[in-house]
C-alpha cells in the first residue's frame, strides 16, 4: 500500500536560517494529524512546502504515490490537497459565496452545481447566512471559517489547516472542533493541522508532531507528547492550560 502523505527529510533555508531541518513524517488516510511548536518553529514553512508554495531545499514529499515536491501550488491543489492561510487571504470584494464558489469550480464545470456545492459548504461552516456579504466585511473568526470553506470546496482529500483556531473564543473553538471532526468523519477528509490551541489539538488529533527550531523533537499521541520532557521544556512550559 502506498502511503497517503509522506514527507522525507525536507529542509528549507532562508539565507542563513534553517527554518525546517530534515523533517520526516507521514500521515495516514483518514486521520487528523497535528503539528505543534513555538512561534517561528517552521510549521508554516513546512506547510508551504507540502502545498507547493516553495520547493524544499532537500528531501522529498509524496502524496498518494506521486512526488509533489517541485510541483506548483495550483497543481498540488488539483491533486487533492487544500490549504488555508494563517494570515487569511479572502478575495475581499467578492461575496462570501463567490469566494467559496471559486473553490467549488475547481472540479465542476456546471455553474449551478458549483453554487449548490458552495452553499452546502457554507452551511457546514456556519456561514450560510452571511453568503451575500463582501468578504472584506467579515470579522476575523468568520474569515478563518471562510478560509476553511474555500479550501473545502475544492473537494480535497487532504486539508492543510494553518492555525484556524487563532483568534477564536473558547465557544467558537469548540464549534470549530466539532465542524472539523465532522469534515473528517462524514466527508472522509484527512486533516493535517497546525495549531497553538492545545485544547483543540487534544480534542482532535490522533497523532501530534512537535517542531522546534525547525527540527522534529517528538511525535506520538497527544497524551504522549504532552508528557514528553523535551516538549515540556522547549514548548509547553508550565503555564499551558488544557
Amino acid at each position, binding site marked *: 500500500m502506498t502511503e497517503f502523505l509522506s514527507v522525507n527529510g525536507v529542509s528549507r533555508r532562508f539565507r542563513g536560517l534553517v527554518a525546517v531541518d530534515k523533517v520526516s513524517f507521514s500521515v495516514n488516510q483518514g486521520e487528523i494529524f497535528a503539528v505543534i511548536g513555538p512561534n517561528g518553529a517552521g510549521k508554516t514553512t513546512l506547510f508551504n512546502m507540502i*502545498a507547493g*508554495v516553495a520547493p524544499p531545499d532537500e528531501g522529498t514529499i509524496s502524496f498518494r504515490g506521486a512526488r509533489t515536491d517541485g510541483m*506548483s*501550488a*495550483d497543481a498540488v*491543489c*488539483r491533486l487533492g490537497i*487544500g*490549504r488555508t*492561510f494563517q494570515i487569511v*487571504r*479572502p*478575495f*475581499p*470584494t*467578492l*461575496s462570501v*459565496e*463567490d469566494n467559496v*464558489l*471559486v*473553490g467549488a*469550480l*475547481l472540479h465542476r*464545470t456546471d*455553474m449551478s452545481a*458549483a*453554487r449548490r456545492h458552495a452553499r452546502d459548504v457554507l452551511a457546514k461552516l456556519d456561514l450560510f447566512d452571511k453568503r*451575500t456579504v463582501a468578504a472584506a466585511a467579515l470579522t476575523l473568526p468568520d474569515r478563518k471559517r471562510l478560509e476553511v470553506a*474555500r*479550501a473545502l470546496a*475544492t473537494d480535497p482529500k487532504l486539508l492543510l489547516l494553518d492555525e484556524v483556531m487563532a483568534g477564536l473564543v473558547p465557544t467558537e473553538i469548540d464549534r470549530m472542533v466539532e465542524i472539523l471532526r465532522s469534515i473528517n468523519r462524514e466527508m472522509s477528509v484527512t486533516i493535517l493541522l497546525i495549531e497553538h490551541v492545545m485544547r483543540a489539538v487534544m480534542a482532535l488529533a490522533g497523532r501530534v508532531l512537535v517542531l522546534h527550531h525547525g527540527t522534529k523533537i517528538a511525535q506520538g499521541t497527544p497524551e504522549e507528547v504532552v508528557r514528553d520532557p523535551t516538549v515540556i521544556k522547549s514548548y509547553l512550559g508550565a503555564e499551558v492550560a488544557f
Partner: protein
Amino acid sequence: MTALWGAMNTRARILLGVLVVMLLAAPLALDRYFLSVLTLILYFVYVGQAWNLMMGYAGQLSLGHALYVGVGGYVAAALWVHYGIGPWLGVVPAIAIAAAFGAAIGWLGFRFGIEGVYFALLTIAFAEFTRIGFDHIPFVGGAGGLFIPYEQDRIGEWWNLRGGQHLFYYLAFLLAAVGVLITALLSRARLGFQWLAIREDETAARALGIDVFRAKMKAVLISSGMTAVGGVFYAFYNNSLFPTQIFNISRSIELILAPIVGGIGTVFGPVVGAFVLTPLGEVLIALTEWLGIDLPGVKAVFYGLTLMIIITLVPTGVWPWIARRLDLVKNEP
C-alpha cells in the same frame, strides 16, 4: 442567456429593453452628425468592454490597447487594398495577428512576473515599438499612411463594409451588443470567476487550484482579439490609417476612459461610461469653438477636469452608483 435575463430585475429589464429599442430606432430620428456621435459611443462601448475583461475582471492593466486596434485595422485594410480580400474574411487574420501580439506581451509579462505598473509599461512599449515599426513598412504605406480608396461603384457593397453612416451605425451597435453579451457571459462563467480570484489575490487563487498563467493568457488573448475587431471597424469607417495616430498612447488612454468612468469589472460600466464621456467630449469641442477659445490643449484640460470630478465623486464608477440609485441590482444571487 436565460440565466443573464434571470439575473436582472424587472426594472433593469425594462430599462435595457427601452435602450435597445431606442438605439435600433435612432437612425430614424437622428441626423448624420448625431448618428456619427452615437456610432463613436458604441465603438467605445465595444473596445472598452474588451479592455474591461482584462483589467476589470482579470486585473491586468494594459495601457497599450491601441496596439490591437492598429494591428487589427492594418491587417484587414492591407488585405483589402492589396488583395481585394473583404473585411468579413480579413477580420480572421486580423484577430489572429493581434492575439499573437497579445500572446507575446502576456507570455513575457506573466512568465517573468512583470506585474502591475511594470506590466503596463510593457504594454506601452509594445505599442510604441509597433508604431515605429509601421512607420517603416512600405507595404502599408509607412508613415504616410494606408488609405482605403473611395470607389463609387463599390458603394452599397455592405458585405465589404462599403456603405454609409447607417451601415456603420448598425455595425457599431452589433459590436457593442456582442461586447456586452461576451462580458456578461464570461463574468458568470468559470473563467470569469478565475479572473476575479486572480485580480483579488493571486496567491489565494493558486491555492484553489487555478493555473494563474493560463487564465491570464486567456484574458489577454480574448481581449486583444476582440479589440482587433474594433480596429477592423475603425479602419473601414475612417478609410485611412496612420501609425502615429492609431498606435498613439493617447488612443490607448481614450479607450480605457469609458470603463474607468463607468465602473471597471462591471458589465454595464463601459456602456454608461461611453454614453457619458463621448458626448461630453463633443460638447466641449462645441463649447470651446463657440467661446472662441482657440488655445491648444484647452479641450484636454476641460476633459481632464471633468474626469477628475467624476472620479472623485464616484470612485468605483458611475454605473454602480446608478444601479444602486435606481435599485437595479438583485441582492439575491
